[in-house]
């Protein structure tokens, strides 16, 4: 029953339509009893020896009318109900899509992407395809039982009472059945998840499995998961059978008892023949909808799990609820005593620095020292725990994401291109850009040549994630996009340049075009590129430990000088097969 409330809550403004559908559905199931009453009517006439041809016509007419009316009613309520399902899910998809833009970026981690998309596509799909029908069947099951009992009570109170008592016992059995269903569907989901991860590991690891001759071992692992999925599925069917049998048993009892009581009451003269005959027929009809509640339980479990996953998504707190649309007129950046923690781990500890407008600041440090976190805090993908991040003198928390990000471009290692034309992918940087502007940006990003070499030029449609282009080419398109956007603040991951070592020079030229006259914050890996930085911030496990220009820092003994020397040796590495084992 809780399931129905949840669905109605989800439906929101459409719940009225759904309720109306229930009413129609109720009348439809009432009309389904017409043939029974026709039987009753005919038998009464036969028993009275008064069956006339007009009765036959009346009876046939009533049944035909009932079928037609049921068709109309059902067509109506199905359209209302299932139609509402599609409307609700379309509305939810759009609503959650709109919210995604305002989720903290930290939410869209590699591991989360799959579950986010599957909640919107697979889970909502399941709800829209099966949710309304399941709800209707549940309501019909309970209502059908209630109506049935009421009809029995009206025809004969003794039989009615017996039926009510047995129905109550059946409901208790249903409760138990649902309990079993719940615990086992959890196991089953876990098995399914285990199978999925075993399969994923097998498929992803196949090259390694083959090259290390692990086929026996790892194939056994995946086969074990396959076998265990089978065992649990069979086990589930087997565990489900006894409670389901007990549930059905109560109705079998009820049926047999009704037959016995009706026949003996007739025998003793306390029941009319017509009533008895009708009861004998009706009792085989009335429990069909309620019996199907047993098989519905597993469907509802799956649906509830889907609802849970989707609701978890809607519960994510959006980041700029109180932000204002603020237009900045200067573009310096300042960190004031910023502390940031991800879950339990403090990643930045009391970091303060200033980045003047149109200057270059480099972030340096080992991986995990907090460089990337600083960049993520500037664009407010995450929020600081303590302290303030100011852009143009305004706390980023006071702005909407839109008004902050209008001023910033980010060029990172992982390029994402849309499944669209190259032209539109570049134009993404500035929606109202003209054709000439797009081409100009492509030229400055050193893209024009390779784009023109493609058969369809700027109209080439890229595959998912930029499929057809090399890493370096994709990177340059993303830089063209940023050049077109022409934001005053640029955040750059310098490793971007080495995405495609074969084309490094082109990417470097593109980046040089992009950063001209901007406020630049660069996450630096190869220190050689930042010799001209106005300031270098050296990070070590979340703290700012050194600050200055290259020339200043290189003369101090400290982490920067160490890093610099290490880089110099790494740079001159040469591969030689016999170099260290003996004379070459």
């Amino acid at each position, binding site marked *: 029953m809780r399931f129905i409330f949840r669905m109605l809550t989800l439906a929101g403004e459409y719940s009225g339509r759904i309720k109306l559908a229930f009413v129609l559905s109720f009348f439809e199931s009432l009309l389904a009893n017409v043939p029974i009453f*026709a039987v009753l009517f005919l038998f009464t006439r036969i028993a009275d020896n008064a069956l006339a041809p007009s009765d036959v016509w009346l009876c046939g007419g009533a049944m035909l009318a009932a079928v037609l009316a049921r068709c109309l009613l059902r067509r109506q309520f199905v359209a209302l109900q299932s139609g509402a399902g599609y409307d609700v899910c379309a509305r939810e998809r759009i609503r959650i899509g709109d919210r995604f833009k305002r989720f903290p970026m930290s939410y869209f981690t590699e591991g989360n992407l799959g579950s986010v998309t599957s909640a919107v596509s697979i889970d909502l799909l399941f709800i829209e395809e099966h949710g309304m029908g399941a709800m209707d069947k549940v309501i019909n099951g309970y209502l059908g039982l209630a109506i049935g009992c009421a009809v029995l009570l009206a025809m004969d109170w003794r039989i009615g009472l017996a039926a009510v008592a047995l129905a109550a016992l059946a409901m208790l059995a249903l409760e138990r059945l649902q309990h079993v269903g719940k615990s086992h569907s959890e196991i089953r989901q876990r098995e399914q998840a285990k199978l999925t991860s075993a399969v994923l590991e097998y498929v992803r690891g196949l090259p390694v499995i083959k090259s290390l001759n692990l086929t026996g071992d790892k194939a056994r692992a995946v086969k074990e998961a396959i076998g265990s999925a*089978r065992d649990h599925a069979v086990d589930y069917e087997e565990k489900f059978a006894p409670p389901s049998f007990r549930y059905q048993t109560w109705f079998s009892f009820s049926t047999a008892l009704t037959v016995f009581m009706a026949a003996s009451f007739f025998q003793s003269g306390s029941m009319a023949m017509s009533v008895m005959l009708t009861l004998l027929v009706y009792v085989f009809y009335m429990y069909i909808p309620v019996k199907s509640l047993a098989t519905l339980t597993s469907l509802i479990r799956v649906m509830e799990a889907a609802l849970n996953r989707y609701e978890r998504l809607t519960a994510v707190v959006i980041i700029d609820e109180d932000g204002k649309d603020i237009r900045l007129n200067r573009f310096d950046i300042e960190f004031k005593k910023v502390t940031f923690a991800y879950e339990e781990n403090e990643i930045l500890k009391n970091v303060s620095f200033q980045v003047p407008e149109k200057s270059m600041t480099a972030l340096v440090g080992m991986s995990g020292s907090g460089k990337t976190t600083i960049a993520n805090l500037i664009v407010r993908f995450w929020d600081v725990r303590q302290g303030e991040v100011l852009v143009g003198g305004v706390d980023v928390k006071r702005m909407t994401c839109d008004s902050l990000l209008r001023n910033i471009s980010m060029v990172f290692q992982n390029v994402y291109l849309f499944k669209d034309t190259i032209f539109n992918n570049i134009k993404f940087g500035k929606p109202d850009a003209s054709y000439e502007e797009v081409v100009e940006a492509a030229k400055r990003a050193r893209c024009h040549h390779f784009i023109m070499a493609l058969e369809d030029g700027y109209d080439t449609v890229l595959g998912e994630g930029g499929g057809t282009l090399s890493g370096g080419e994709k990177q340059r398109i993303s830089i063209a996009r940023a050049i077109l956007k022409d934001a005053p603040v640029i955040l750059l991951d310098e490793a971007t340049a080495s995405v495609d070592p074969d084309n490094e020079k082109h990417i470097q030229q593109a980046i040089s075009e992009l950063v001209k006259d901007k406020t630049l914050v660069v996450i630096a890996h190869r220190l050689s590129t930042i010799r001209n930085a106005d300031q270098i911030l050296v990070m070590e496990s979340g703290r700012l430990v050194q600050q200055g220009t290259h020339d200043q820092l290189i003369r101090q003994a400290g982490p920067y000088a160490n890093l610099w020397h290490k880089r110099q040796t790494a740079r001159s590495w040469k591969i030689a097969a016999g170099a260290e084992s003996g004379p070459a």
Partner: protein
Amino acid sequence: MREFLHVYTYVAQFKKKMYAAVAYITISILLGIVPYYLIYLIIMRFMQDEPLSLAYLGIVAGLILGSLLLRTQTLHKGMSASHKLAYDTLMGMRTRLADKLRKMPMGAVSRHSTGSLKKNFVENIEDMELMLAHAVPEGISNLLMLTVISVTMFALDWRMALLALAVLPIGLLAVVLMVKDGMKRMGPYYQASQEMNDNIIEYVAGMEVIKVFNQTTSSFQKYRTSVENYRKFALDWYQVSWNYMTVYSIVLPSTLLFLLPGGAWFYTNGTLSLGAFVMAILLAMSMGAPLIRLVEFLPILPTLRQKAQKIERLFEEPELAKGAIRSAPKDYTVEFRHVTFAYGDLDVIRDVSFTAKENAVTALVGESGAGKSTLAKLLVRFWDVNEGAVAIGGVDIREMSMETLMKTISYVSQDVFLFNTTIMENIRMGRQDAADDEVVAMAKLAQCHDFIMETERGYQTVVGDAGDKLSGGQRQRLSIARAMLKNAPVVVLDEATSATDPENEDRIQAALNGLIQGKTLIVIAHRLSTVADADNLVLMDRGRIAAQGTHADLLAASPIYRTMWQAHMESMDWDLNVKERSR
């Protein structure tokens, strides 16, 4: 239908269960008719004004209860048998798929996305359950039951049988029209659904770009349109099929619609006995449920067919030919002899010949897309060559058993894959009989020991739990340790490996130095300075060898190499600048 029949080839070994399932379900359906017959008996006795004893009524009621209970029980037995059959079959299909992937060339496997392989493995095969466990055994049993009831009715009174079956043509017509219309509208619907799913994935995966370029409007518009389109096409289709669905779902079970008035009329005529009338009503009523069950499976079949097709196509993919030579090659010189390889219609490698000697460095250089990585992949039989041959120690690699070939070669690439088990086991996979201290020794050589000891459980840390805590460079070094333990005489190295973690480049380099000593080393080189000392540089240009020789040879002889070298030198000296450089 061919696809379905094919799925049944997997069932063949479980024939007994299939027969059992059909038998149980049929018995259960027949048991369902017994109470009707008993009711008929009572009614006939009453009609003849025969007094009935309570004991007699008690026995009849008991028989009704018994047959109902037995019916439920046999139904459960039947369903249990058919589910076992179904899950055994699914297991068989999955196991076969796992073996199939292993036998396919890796290149062919990699053409399928991980997602689609997983979908075939898990979801698509799972969906066959519906057909195996339900559609077929229940379909057969329901059909059997309908036949039995119809025959009984014809025996009872042929007119009543026809009246009961009169709803059948109406209902079937609705079903046929619905399936026909569905065929027409299904295409656009599935396309809209596919488009919506693609857009959802793209919208979520591209969220960072969407946020930064605050193009929330246009990309959101695209997303929104696809959502609305999908709803439109779904409703377009369903609005029509609901009409048909309504008709057949109401008309088919209404077997009394014609029978009741007709029977009453025959009764008044005196051409039908009351007993036969009652019996006919009961029999007709028991036809409704199986009719609906039968029809309900029809609309699902086209989707199932599509999925069965996808699975079948995977099973039909060609497998890598198996080599027979198990002995190790006599030496480890690698030879490419006039190798030509095409990928689809594209010639990727054309007539390439070179020799990589033992204890020497052979570097493959060239622009991206020139064919460097393809050559390396041909060596590990990711694909097989179209013409020419690749040989190790004079033996064509296609004649070697896969095991021997893999024992001979270590391939260190940028893509590192670690299994979700302990660090210790991940390294040990290089040589399964290695002792713990051998593993630790290799980890030390590969510059892994220190960071491993920093993790909470050291070598017993499970890689998946460490998750993001291992940096790219650390994972890379673990894979190098694994390769070092394997100690294969031929090493193929993607040099970009060393740049996986720029802050720790020196450590990865040290690890690699340990791996490559005294081997036949083939390097896919990107930064030319790293391979300037190589014994032989093979310069690739659009699938062909443009030049071959030492660094000095190439500088002197090849203009392409000279340009590349110059560009590389410049990029080494690149400086970032926000102001125009004042040089």
